[in-house]
């Protein structure tokens, strides 16, 4: 904005038509540079959006015409000063929740696999308790020589290999 005002100050005193035209052109390109969001800003938002026309392809890499238009829409809304959240919200109202990269209902989407995993873990630990219980009663011998066990195993393995070689 500052840039624009400055240029106007310079441009006005100039009477020459050609100079005016040149500076006007300059003003316009400066305008474009100042206000148009960059591709990177657009892609940052587009990365998390999915267009229904090309399912499972994020918007920033989708080559279809529909997706190109969507990216332009993001650019336009960024230029209007909308935030990332507002833009995403706009897309959700217009095109439905499927434009988001995750289901809007976070709880449902994470809860089921989490519960399944916990159930599996529970079964496993219950199993361990069951398997280990009789052992604790039976004897304490294994725990005693457990420390020596890996070493023993090593020597035994080596011996076995020696045997095999012969």
């Amino acid at each position, binding site marked *: 904005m500052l840039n624009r005002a400055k240029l106007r100050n310079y441009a006005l005193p100039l009477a020459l038509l050609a100079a005016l035209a040149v500076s006007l052109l300059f003003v316009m390109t400066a305008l474009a540079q100042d206000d148009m969001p960059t591709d990177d800003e657009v892609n940052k938002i587009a990365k998390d959006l999915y*267009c*229904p*026309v090309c399912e499972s392809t994020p918007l920033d890499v989708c080559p*279809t*015409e*529909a997706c*190109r*238009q*969507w990216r*332009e*829409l993001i650019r*336009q809304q960024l230029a209007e000063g909308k935030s990332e959240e507002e833009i995403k919200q706009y897309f*959700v*109202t*217009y*095109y*439905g*929740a*499927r434009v988001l990269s995750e289901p809007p209902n976070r709880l449902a989407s994470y809860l089921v696999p989490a519960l399944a995993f916990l159930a599996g873990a529970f079964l496993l630990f219950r199993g361990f308790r*069951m398997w280990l*219980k*009789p052992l604790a009663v039976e004897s304490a011998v294994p725990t005693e020589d457990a420390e020596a066990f890996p070493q023993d195993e090593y020597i035994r393995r080596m011996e076995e290999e020696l045997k095999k070689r012969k």
Partner: protein
Amino acid sequence: MTESTNIAPARKGVPLWVQVIIWVFLAGLLGIVAMGLNRAQQGTIQPGHAVDDFTLPLYSGYEYQGASEVKLSELRGKIVVINFWASWCKPCEQEAAELQSAWEQYEPTGEVVFLGVDYVDTEPQARVYLKKFGITFPNGPDLATRISQYFRIKGVPETYFIDREGVLRYVQVGPFTSLQQIQNIIDPLLSE
């Protein structure tokens, strides 16, 4: 449940309730996949189907009798032609002129309403398209793709003809090639 010996225990199966859970789980899983498959195979909704009500918001300049949205149920007694299109859709351009001239022909009768439902499109581009083809019938965006999901469209363009009773009578998949083709569908419905 403990098996503390190496001797094979007496023949002991899985408890019944575990078996029930396993089978219910399997059946549920297969059921969901079956429903998904069924849905994928279904295609669009078929003629004979009484169409549920929906509301189409309309682009300004493309209102229906001055209202900025239109409800299907308000159009009962009229023949409704629902055309799904998009500005990025090349085949849609082939039929745009035919649809418009059909609209111009039937609009004066007041007995036929054309509704353009703009599928996954951006408003500025949609306006460029509507202007380019001089379209004047009511048009609006398919908000959250609800309408297209209801009709289970497979692509654009697709056109659905609903009779005076609100029953779907004809489905056109792909573009119309002539005005005659559209007339041949609407005229019999009009004379009913």
